């Protein structure tokens, strides 16, 4: 099976696949981040989430995020996989892995990537909770918005 650095998939996410993809003998650190479906949000008891993507664009934008991270931290290799469809409590909706000779850059690139995912990747989640459901809406997606990019970089390097 060929694993790509970026993917949008209905399959369960496996951090080990991303680790194997980004890691190499010269690395001193691999950081992984998994975003999970939690059982509460804004005072509601969440039962499950449903993710929807504009897939061809989402894959492109994930690739763009990996390129952006490479621009900031040239020694880091980054992979991002995002899941779609129905996800139950405790399941991973997104996994980021970043490998580097040194931990500081791996941490920073990981944080940058997940912040950018939330800003610009065309994916939406519908929250199902006790008594109803609602589409969550966060950021207006604009990859050319430099202020958003700078904000993600500042968070990554805080």
């Amino acid at each position: 099976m060929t694993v790509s650095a970026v993917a949008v998939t209905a399959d369960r996410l496996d951090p080990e696949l991303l680790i194997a993809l980004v890691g190499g003998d010269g690395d001193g650190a691999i950081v992984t981040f998994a975003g999970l479906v939690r059982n509460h949000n804004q005072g509601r008891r969440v039962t499950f989430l449903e993710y929807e993507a504009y897939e061809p664009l989402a894959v492109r934008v994930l690739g763009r995020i990996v390129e952006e991270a490479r621009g900031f931290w040239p020694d880091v290799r980054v992979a991002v996989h995002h899941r779609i469809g129905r996800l139950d409590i405790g399941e991973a909706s997104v996994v980021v892995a970043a490998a580097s000779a040194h931990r500081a850059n791996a941490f920073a690139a990981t944080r940058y990537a997940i912040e950018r995912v939330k800003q610009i990747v065309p994916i939406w989640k519908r929250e199902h909770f006790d008594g109803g459901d609602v589409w969550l809406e966060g950021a207006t997606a604009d990859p050319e918005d430099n202020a958003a990019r700078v904000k993600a970089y500042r968070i990554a390097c805080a």
Partner: protein
Amino acid sequence: MRVTVRLFARLRELAGCGELTRDVAAPATARDVWEGLAAEWPALRAYEPTMSVAVNAEYSRMTAPIDDGDEIAFLPPVSGG
């Protein structure tokens, strides 16, 4: 000319359909396609200040010129992660 329109998440639900074809008079921009949709489903208007647009699966602008056969997607604020 004829274009494909893609709608996602809440926009898809407001229109009751995620993919449709529409005829627009050339020359046209993404905004012209949107105006047609908003006339059909006025509830879509609420998303004008916050949505994004993509042409042929690339982020674009409402002022972008479009061609016959293009796919125009209107995207509500994203909530991945």
